[in-house]
């Protein structure tokens, strides 16, 4: 067991924080979120230049070979600076699936341009009342159905989509956005990021579009989504950290009745609650991050537990931060509201806080698992 950040990890945090503090203030955020694409190509190419787009990928793929901890460091910085660029959807989900499932040829054709910032991916996984299915038809597949809440789809060049095959297995296809019959209906979300509903109106795709051949992709999808959730947890921790720090700062400067309102004990106690929740959320996120490499049961427990716990903390923190800012906190004059919205999006995406609490509770109700601490035997993973 080792829970100390390495020097390289500390440097990554520092450099990400510095760049974003300089290049991604609230005014830039407002400009980017109000603009049409909802993200900035200039910023994205900076991300590429820093190597961040290749961070989680193996060096032989042209990546940096970073692990979940490095991703979490970056995501926390993104959350802290309200970054809207489609890192989670394109790199973690899209790139993660390609690396996990893709053939060597697919990896070679998709990952380098992704890492260079020239290719954007999105992963359509959330089924609707019309779930996506794929039916073999000669050397082609016919993909039909509708996915919703597809993060980053409006700007993506290629769409990855999970589809049920006839035999109970799941496959992932990769389709150019220009595929005839594909309808992308984009919409903005409350926190400024973009998503889309996608109709696959009996789209015909070649066998080559099947990611990694005919294996059942369900486990890989689960793993990639769990890694995306852990990354999103880090983003939320970043946003919470910013909200707590700003609230403490604000109450130190806001004077009423002749003194800074931070002097009022009731407010101090409320801010301590916020800070404690931030610390708990950070710990919970770290548990999820470090459990991504663990046994599947540990991963599910840690990831769903973190999603639920951080969701609860995030709700309390954003409400308290707004209340302690007074009226100004309820407006778009400060960045505070943007953080609140980001945390609300966190709570709802990839399964709500309640969904994950149920998943976690079902796991932890087993007294054997309930008794198990966080440390695990690597041999079992």
């Amino acid at each position, binding site marked *: 067991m080792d829970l100390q950040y390495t020097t390289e990890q500390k440097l990554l945090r520092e450099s990400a924080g510095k760049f974003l503090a300089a290049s991604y203030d609230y005014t830039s955020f407002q400009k980017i979120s109000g603009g049409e694409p909802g993200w900035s190509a200039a910023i994205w190419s900076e991300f590429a230049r820093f190597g961040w787009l290749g961070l989680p990928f193996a060096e032989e793929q042209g990546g940096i070979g970073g692990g979940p901890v490095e991703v979490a460091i970056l995501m926390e910085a993104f959350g802290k600076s309200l970054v809207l660029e489609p890192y989670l959807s394109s790199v973690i989900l899209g790139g993660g699936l390609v690396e996990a499932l893709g053939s060597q040829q697919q990896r070679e054709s998709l990952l380098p341009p992704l890492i260079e910032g020239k290719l954007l991916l999105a992963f359509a996984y959330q089924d609707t009342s019309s779930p996506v299915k794929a039916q073999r038809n000669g050397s082609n597949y016919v993909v039909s159905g509708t996915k919703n*809440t597809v993060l980053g789809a409006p700007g993506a060049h290629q769409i990855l989509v999970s589809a049920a095959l006839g035999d109970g297995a799941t496959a992932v296809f990769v389709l150019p956005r220009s595929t005839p019959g594909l309808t992308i209906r984009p*919409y*903005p*979300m*409350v*926190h400024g990021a973009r*998503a889309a509903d996608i109709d696959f109106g009996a789209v015909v795709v070649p066998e080559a579009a099947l990611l990694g051949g005919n294996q059942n992709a369900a486990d890989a999808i689960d793993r990639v989504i769990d890694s995306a959730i852990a990354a999103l947890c880090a983003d939320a921790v970043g946003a919470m950290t910013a909200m707590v720090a700003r609230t403490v700062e604000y109450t130190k400067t806001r*004077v*009423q*009745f*002749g003194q800074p309102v931070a002097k*009022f004990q*009731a*407010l101090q106690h409320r801010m301590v609650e916020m800070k404690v929740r931030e610390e708990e959320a950070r710990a919970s996120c770290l548990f999820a991050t470090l459990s991504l490499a663990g046994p599947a049961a540990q991963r599910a427990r840690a990831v769903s537990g973190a999603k639920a716990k951080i969701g609860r903390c995030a709700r309390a923190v954003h*409400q308290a931060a*707004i*209340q302690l800012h*007074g*009226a100004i*906190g*309820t*407006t*778009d*004059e400060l960045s505070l*509201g943007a953080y*609140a*919205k980001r945390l*609300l*999006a966190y709570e*709802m*995406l990839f399964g*709500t806080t*309640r969904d994950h609490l149920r998943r976690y509770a079902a796991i932890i109700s087993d007294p054997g698992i309930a008794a198990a601490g966080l440390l695990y035997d690597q041999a079992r993973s």
Partner: protein
Amino acid sequence: MDLHLDPEDLAFRDAVRRFLDENLLPATRRATALTTGFINDPEVAVVFHRALHRKGWSVPHWPEKYGGTGWTQVQRYLFEAECARAGAPIYNGAGSNMIGPVLMRFGTDEQKKKYLPRIVSGEDCWAQGYSEPGSGSDLASLRTRAVRDGEHYVINGQKIWTTHAHKSNRLFALVRTSTEGKKQEGITFLMMDTGLPGITVRPIIGNGGDHEFNEVFFDDVRAPVAGRVSEENMGWEVAKYLLEFERGGNPVAGRVRAQFARLATLIGKKCPGDADIVARLGELGTDLDAMEMIELTAVSALQTGGNPGPVSSLLKLRWSQLRQQLAELAMDAVGVEALRWIAARPLYDTLQLPADEEQMLSVMPRYLNYRAYTILGGTSEIQTGILARSLLGL
């Protein structure tokens, strides 16, 4: 003691229901239901206000000589509840609940004659200029200066949180006319037109995307002395009287009840079998029942000439929390779909969808805007401090 409605009350309630059936237009109901801010747009609400005015019901709580109805407290309560239940908007509370009562108490005959009828009819729309950037909870520290110059006050300074200043033709404000003595002692209460030269209104957009609040800047604004209410430097007394009205005022159980019923409907459609959501609805229902009972007890005390005691802060505190919690539960009931964001306002102009879908899109803005319920009109922390003194003697 009983909770019965007697036959006269029932007949009254039925009359109100008939009136609403006939006079509250579907478009107005829809616009009210799709309002995501705190208060209804005057242009929507005034349509219904005019119908009320024709009926003589536009200011039921006012004395009859100024246009009131002479209803009993129970009738007033029923009227409010029925209006809320039917989805009726409220027009310009700053007029009928703030400056109106203030003028009745402190205004000159001339002022009453000039302003009150235009509130009754809905011709005037009022805005309130109280808070300043540095003076929120600590209102008396306000610094907007007014200097007497003949028959005018020359005003310089800034107000903030001025609801619907951009949609109002009149404004009342607290201004500092003296810096001597205690900070409460140099304040004057002034009425003026929003169109006066030197007044600039800057919008403040809420987290929920609505434009309800404004900053108002005063740059050598010359406001006639005739608009002064009470004496110079006596404005704090007027302000305190007004705040009592703002906090106590009309019964609000009916409004919260209507919000609750809309939520029950939403849950019934969206997630009827979700035990957790239904249990939370239940908890909020029991909160609402308790608060309505507290309000009814105050109504009953007034009805029999008694004093309801220091409940106004308790009502403000809990009603505002409850409205937030209802909005929060609506958001949770809708789930991930609540993230879909329509930026344009008002929603009733922007949207053209089936009613259920329109409602879902109003849920997130409402949640966000409603965070201000526990801040505006006296924060929960301020109310709690008042209650520590008034209820606990601390």
